[in-house]
């Protein structure tokens, strides 16, 4: 394969993994924006989404029903998780919330190991579209479907947040929760909605990810989850365009490192980027630097 073709192929790979990271990073960034919580259990929701859809597919349901059920279950799951684990701690310190989130993550991974065993399970990919050929490079349907679905969801999410009243309420709560309450906004509902949307996006990410990278296992969500968190920090946590930008940048860096430097050093390089970013520009590329109130 020629150098140019290899580069083009890596570009496609980068867009693919970048769009998965973007879907997950959106959940991180939205929840952070509203609840000021880094929900480390968020990555595990993609695992829950993958397993629910697998159960449905194995039960013989058509793919679209499997997707819808998986999205609904995950949204509900996100709401319940917030009500049970995080809501009682809303007035507690940030560190208690963070530790709880890590606890929820372990709880999810281990209970799924108990139920489904730790063995990887093959995922019957259902994206059955022709492979796209551009020059000498062929792009599998999984790749372009992932990209198109992700971009479409990002546009819809952006419209929702900018244009609808619920979206306005979300932005208001993220700016000043107390004032939002006193203007009649039901903050609890707004937070639930945020968790539901974030979890729904994670479920979709889980389904797309499983189509690209079968088999699946109960800890499949943890690494993509952390990578998406890095993407959110890179772009500026709390910012929606920031999360998308950070995710695509991270996806590109990852595939280029894998192709041209070393696949063994991949994760070290990615985490080094996080450390550098936190040291040099902790607010992220599009984040606003937080000024201390005097």
């Amino acid at each position: 394969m020629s150098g140019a073709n290899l580069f083009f192929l890596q570009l496609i790979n980068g867009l693919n993994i970048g769009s998965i990271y973007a879907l997950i990073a959106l959940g991180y960034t939205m929840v952070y924006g509203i609840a000021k919580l880094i929900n480390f259990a968020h990555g595990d929701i993609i695992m829950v989404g993958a397993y629910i859809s697998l159960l449905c597919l194995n039960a013989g349901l058509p793919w679209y029903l499997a997707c819808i059920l998986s999205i609904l279950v995950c949204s509900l799951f996100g709401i319940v998780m917030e009500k049970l684990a995080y809501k009682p701690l809303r007035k507690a310190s940030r560190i208690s919330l963070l530790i709880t989130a890590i606890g929820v993550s372990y709880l999810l991974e281990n209970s799924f190991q108990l139920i489904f065993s730790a063995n990887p399970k093959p995922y019957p990919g259902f994206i059955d579209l022709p492979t796209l050929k551009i020059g000498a490079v062929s792009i599998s349907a999984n790749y372009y479907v992932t990209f198109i679905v992700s971009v479409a969801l990002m546009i819809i999410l952006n419209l929702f947040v900018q244009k609808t009243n619920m979206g306005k309420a979300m932005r208001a709560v993220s700016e000043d929760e107390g004032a939002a309450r006193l203007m009649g906004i039901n903050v609890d509902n707004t937070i639930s909605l945020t968790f539901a949307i974030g979890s729904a996006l994670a479920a979709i990410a889980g389904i797309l990810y499983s189509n690209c990278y079968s088999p699946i296992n109960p800890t499949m969500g943890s690494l993509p989850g952390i990578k998406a968190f890095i993407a959110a920090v890179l772009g500026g946590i709390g910012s929606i365009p920031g999360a998308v930008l950070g995710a695509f940048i991270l996806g590109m860096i990852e595939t280029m490192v894998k192709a041209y430097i070393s696949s063994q050093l991949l994760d070290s390089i990615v985490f080094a980027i996080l450390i550098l970013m936190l040291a040099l520009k902790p607010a992220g590329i599009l984040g606003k630097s937080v000024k201390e109130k005097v």
Partner: protein
Amino acid sequence: MSNVLEVRDLGINFGGLRAVDGLNIDVAPRQLYGLIGPNGAGKTTVFNMLTGVYEPSDGTIRLNGELLNGKKPHEIARMGISRTFQNIRLFRNLSVKENVLISLDTQVDYGLFSGIFKLPKSFKQEKAMEEEALELLKVFELDGYADTLACNLPYGKQRELEIVRALGTHPKLLLLDEPAAGMNPQETQNLMDAIQRLREKFAISVLLIEHDMKLVMGICEKITVINYGTLLACGTPQEIQNDPQVIKAYLGE
């Protein structure tokens, strides 16, 4: 006769500190009512209890006869008490119009799921809300700034926008926490005119905390003075100005 607001024996403890004790306030329909007192007297604490931010330790608060104790802030806002803040708390990165639309929208009460399913609001409804927002902004001639981000407004305009946003919830009682703080005499005069104008236009009662005595004595029909969380005096501006207790609290012996 029925009062809009009836506060009876209101009290609150913060740990061992009795911040407010045995306070009674009656606000009549369309009344301009002043709540004054030295710094730290507990004025803002009273506002926080009226709006559900703090739960009173004892006493009752009634709005048009309905008990407010134990209600959540967003429920009280929807029942008809709205407020502004001592230090401006606008949604800074939302536009001026969006700040008002948010409080207007709380008039449409929907739960989480019905909220999601009713998302595609009819174009007509949306249009009507936008028009009302612009109409409200005109009260302070802010309609020209509709698409400006709230944080880019000049200081005095931000204070006015807070009042407009509070009006968006269609309140029966408007609480203003030091509305003239940081304003120059001309701006304060304009504010006094505006408060009287909007009382007429929206037929609401106004309860305000203010240190600017010219404003308080100029527009309030009734004044309550508190000190160390307890009632010091209550009456017309004339009575308050001549009350020896009040003079002592403000000027010392």
